[in-house]
């Protein structure tokens, strides 16, 4: 039933091309071959023999006509196809199409520009969001009746209590690994006992808080983003606003407070668990008794290490909560957007936590604390 499309010189009228057959999408390959073999020029094209024509065929016919120096308007077709050729001609042959397809340097520069702009905007947004949250937080502090206790406690449970086993397990393992590493190096000097200081200082100053913050950045920031993002795409945030409620007060403050309270507590647990891990290794393979370990810890470790470590916890908590919530508010409608924002919130909060920790380490070292 299908006829191959054709176009050839008329026998009786030289210079006139006669098109026939089915000019349809199903025959697109054959049409492309015809187009490639089109002559330089022609006086006229006669399309009255075309038996079937669809918009893809009409587009090819238009291209053919343009290629031989004519336009689709001059091609005669069956009256039933005239509305179609009219529509396609108006689209294909009206203003010369501007094709801007550039996969080269310009596009790379453009993307770099967009990336820089994006980062700038995100940084500004974070600072702005911090200000907004502080302002709202101050308002709530002045009028404590506005503080929402129930959601805060709920988030405390989700953020803090539910994370306890994970934090303890991972800190214990890392503590054990550090003790092993230290023992291997220190044994050469006959100074295995210094493992106690190594594990103690490492966990009190850095690893306790850093491990907890990274865990919560992965666990909690993503949850905050997904929760608020889903609300954003379901227009719940808009509903909150139109009901005269403040989404910051309602959603951000409880999460922020929960995290600021729970992160130091988890950090404390992580310090204990990490030192516990170090002690377990010392007892098992270095021949240090638990009593020796604890006495040594008490004798050599100053309490300032503990405060240095713990002081960083609320700062990290603010960073994680703010980024998690802010990314949630920036979700736009689609499912993909929720995924992108969640990824972005985890990446941002982990990197920022590590960056801040590095600066803090420098600062405390210079201050001799």
């Amino acid at each position, binding site marked *: 039933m299908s006829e191959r499309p054709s176009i050839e010189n008329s026998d009786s009228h030289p210079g006139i091309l006669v098109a026939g057959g*089915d000019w349809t*999408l199903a025959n697109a390959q054959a049409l*492309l071959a015809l187009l490639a073999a089109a002559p330089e020029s022609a006086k006229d094209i006669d399309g009255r023999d075309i038996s079937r024509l669809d918009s893809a065929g009409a587009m090819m016919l238009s291209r053919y006509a343009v290629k031989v120096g004519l336009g689709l308007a001059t091609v005669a077709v069956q009256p*039933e196809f005239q509305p*179609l050729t009219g529509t396609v001609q108006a689209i294909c042959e009206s203003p010369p199409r501007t094709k801007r397809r550039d996969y080269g340097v310009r596009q790379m520069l453009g993307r770099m520009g967009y990336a820089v702009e994006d980062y700038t905007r995100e940084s500004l947004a974070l600072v702005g969001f911090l200000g907004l949250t502080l302002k709202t937080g101050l308002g709530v502090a002045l009028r404590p009746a506005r503080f929402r206790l129930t959601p805060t406690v709920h988030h405390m449970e989700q953020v803090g209590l539910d994370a306890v086993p994970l934090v303890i397990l991972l800190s214990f393992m890392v503590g054990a690994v550090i003790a092993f590493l230290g023992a291997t190096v220190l044994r050469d000097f006959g100074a295995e006992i210094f493992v106690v200081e190594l594990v103690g200082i490492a966990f009190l100053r850095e690893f306790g808080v850093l491990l907890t913050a990274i865990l919560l950045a992965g666990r909690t920031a993503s949850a905050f983003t997904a929760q608020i993002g889903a609300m954003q795409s379901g227009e719940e945030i808009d509903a909150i606003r139109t009901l005269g409620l403040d989404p910051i007060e309602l959603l951000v403050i409880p999460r922020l407070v929960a995290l600021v309270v729970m992160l130091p507590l988890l950090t404390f647990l992580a310090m204990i668990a990490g030192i516990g891990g170090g002690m377990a290794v010392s007892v098992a393979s270095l021949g240090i008794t638990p009593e020796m370990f604890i006495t040594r810890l008490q004798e050599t470790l100053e309490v300032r290490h503990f405060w240095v470590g713990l002081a960083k916890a609320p700062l990290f908590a603010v960073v994680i909560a703010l980024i998690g919530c802010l990314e949630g508010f920036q979700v736009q409608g689609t499912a993909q957007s929720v995924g992108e924002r969640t990824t972005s919130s985890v990446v941002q909060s982990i990197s920022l936590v590590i960056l801040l920790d590095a600066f803090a380490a420098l600062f405390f070292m210079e201050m001799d604390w």
Partner: protein
Amino acid sequence: MSAVDQETPAIQVRGLRNAFGSQVVHEDLDMDVRRGEIIGVVGGSGTGKSVLMRAILGLREPQAGTIEVLGVDALSEAGRSSGVIEKNTGVLYQNGALFSSLTVAENVAVPLKEHYGELPEDMIQDLALLKIRMAGLGEDAGAKLPSQLSGGMRKRAALARALALDPELLFLDEPTAGLDPIAAAAFDTLIKTLQRALGLTVFLITHDLDTLYTICDRVAVLADRRVLVNAPLAEVETFDHPWVQEYFHGPRGRAAQAAQAKEA
């Protein structure tokens, strides 16, 4: 397109029965859609307009009956696996159902790549662009994501995707729902223009009386589990059935009639 018989009706439904558990939606339903017509399908909520469309499209297996689409038995395994129906039908879902992670141009290119993957990439791009412009969108709309478009533009983008394969048969599920009256009127005109230009057969589910009066050749009324009447509008208006009378002679029906009379 080659295997399609020109003489038979575009859609022929016989003795269709659809039921959800004990709730029967269609019972012994017959319906014909002629080639090249725009048929408006109306009916109250819950009369199974969408169920009928889903059954015709093969998205839902009916309990009994036969459905022929473009002369192909839509319910047989052979008819389904031939791909004739998929290649020759385009569907505009109520909410557009555009893939939210692809741009408009990529959305339109999806069916082309699936069914005509051997075509060169730039040809597919050009075809996608042609459809986008035929649907009345600017060229720049092609690079946008569905979420960046307004409701009316999203419908047009979805229409462009429905037209991608140059189908003979176009299904529209409430195309003007959620559009403002001006956009709805423009969309009606667009459908009529495209139907004429491409020689489409259109199966149109609608609640919009203005759409019925302006573009439909025939109207099928679904009620009492079957197609009550399937005829040109003038005939349907006079049909003696309480729902039909209320529908066409209620305040909204009269307003649409008056508007149509003024235009004519």
